[in-house]
C-alpha cells in the first residue's frame, strides 16, 4: 500500500527532470562531434597534435556535399542550398556549375578582346573569386524591422549579423537572376548578375543601396528598437 504513492512521486520527479535533448531531432547523441572534412583543417590538426585527441571521439558521418576535394567551397555549397527548390539538389548544383562556366566564358572573352597586357592581367578569370566578390559586395550592413509604437508601425533600422547579411546578399543575387525574359536561361542571367555585382553595379547592388537609403531616411526611428 505504501509503495505505490512513493513510486508515483518518483515518476513525477522524473518527468519534471526530463529535458528535451539539445540536438533536437538529430539521430546522433549530443556528444558526437561534427566531421572535419577540409584538407587544410586536417593537416592543421595533425600538425598541432589535436588529431590524436579527436581520433577516438565519436564523429558524425559527413554529409554528401562535404568533401575534401580541392573544388569544395563552403560558400558555393551554401549558394547551392539557397538556390535549391523542393530538395532538388542535382538541379541546383547543375545551375551553379553552368553559371560558373558562363562566367568563365564571359571573362575569357573580355580577356582575349583586350590588347594591352596590363589590362589583361586585371581581368579576374576565376569564377569562384567572382562569386565571392559579388556576395561580399551585395552584403547589407543594416536592415529594417517593423516595430509598433502607439498604433503606428515604424520601419526601424537595426544592425544585422554577418550570417543574415550573407543570406540576404545571396537571396538578392538569386532574385536578380530570376528577373529575366522567358527565353533567357537562368544560369546566363545569374552569371551576368554575378559579374555585375563583382564590379559593384547591377540590380542586386542597387537593391542593397536602396535598403541603405531607406535606413538613412528612417534613422530618426533608430532608438525605437526594443525587445
Amino acid at each position: 500500500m505504501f509503495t505505490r504513492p512513493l513510486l508515483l512521486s518518483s515518476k513525477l520527479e522524473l518527468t519534471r527532470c526530463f529535458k528535451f535533448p539539445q540536438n533536437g531531432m538529430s539521430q546522433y547523441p549530443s556528444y558526437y562531434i561534427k566531421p572535419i572534412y577540409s584538407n587544410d583543417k586536417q593537416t592543421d590538426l595533425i600538425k598541432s597534435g589535436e588529431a590524436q585527441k579527436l581520433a577516438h571521439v565519436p564523429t558524425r558521418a559527413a554529409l554528401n556535399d562535404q568533401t575534401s576535394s580541392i573544388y569544395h567551397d563552403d560558400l558555393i555549397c551554401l549558394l547551392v542550398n539557397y538556390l535549391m527548390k523542393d530538395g532538388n539538389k542535382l538541379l541546383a548544383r547543375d545551375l551553379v556549375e553552368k553559371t560558373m562556366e558562363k562566367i568563365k566564358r564571359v571573362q575569357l572573352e573580355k580577356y582575349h578582346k583586350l590588347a594591352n597586357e596590363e589590362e589583361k592581367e586585371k581581368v579576374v578569370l576565376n569564377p569562384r573569386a567572382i562569386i565571392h566578390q559579388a556576395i561580399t559586395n551585395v552584403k547589407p550592413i543594416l536592415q529594417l524591422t517593423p516595430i509598433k509604437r502607439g498604433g503606428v508601425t515604424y520601419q526601424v533600422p537595426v544592425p544585422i549579423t554577418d550570417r543574415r547579411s550573407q543570406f540576404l546578399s545571396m537571396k538578392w543575387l538569386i532574385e536578380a537572376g530570376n528577373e529575366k525574359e522567358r527565353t533567357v536561361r537562368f544560369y546566363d542571367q545569374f552569371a551576368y548578375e554575378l559579374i555585375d555585382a563583382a564590379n559593384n553595379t547591377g540590380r542586386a547592388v542597387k537593391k542593397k543601396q536602396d535598403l541603405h537609403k531607406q535606413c538613412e531616411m528612417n534613422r530618426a526611428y533608430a532608438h525605437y528598437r526594443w525587445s
Partner: protein
Amino acid sequence: MRILPALWARGNPKEPVPFQEILPLKLRPFVSGKGDKTSNVCCLYEMSLVFGCLKENEFKESACGREIKSFQECFTNYNKQKYITKEREAKGILTPGEKRLPYRQLNKLLRMYPNEK
C-alpha cells in the same frame, strides 16, 4: 498577499482610525522579474556615424570602411556580451561586488538570507 482587495475589505473608517494590521508589516521575500528587461538599443552612435558617412559619399561603402567596421564590431561585441551574461545568469553564478543584480540572483540572495520571524 493581494494588496488592493485587502484594502477594499476594510470599508469606510471613522475618526479616530484604529490601527489594524491587514497585511504583515514586512517586505516580500522575492522580487518580480518584470523590471529586468533591459532595452537592446545598442551601437546608436556608431550607426549615426555610418549614416553620416554614407550620405556624404553617396552610399558608396568603400569610402566608409572604418565606420562600418567599428559599427559591426560593436554589434558583435554586444551580442557576445549578451550571450555571456545570459549564460552566467542561467548558471546562477554570483559575482561579488556587482551593482546591478539580475532578478534571479536577487532572489537567490534573498533566499539565502530570509526575513527574521
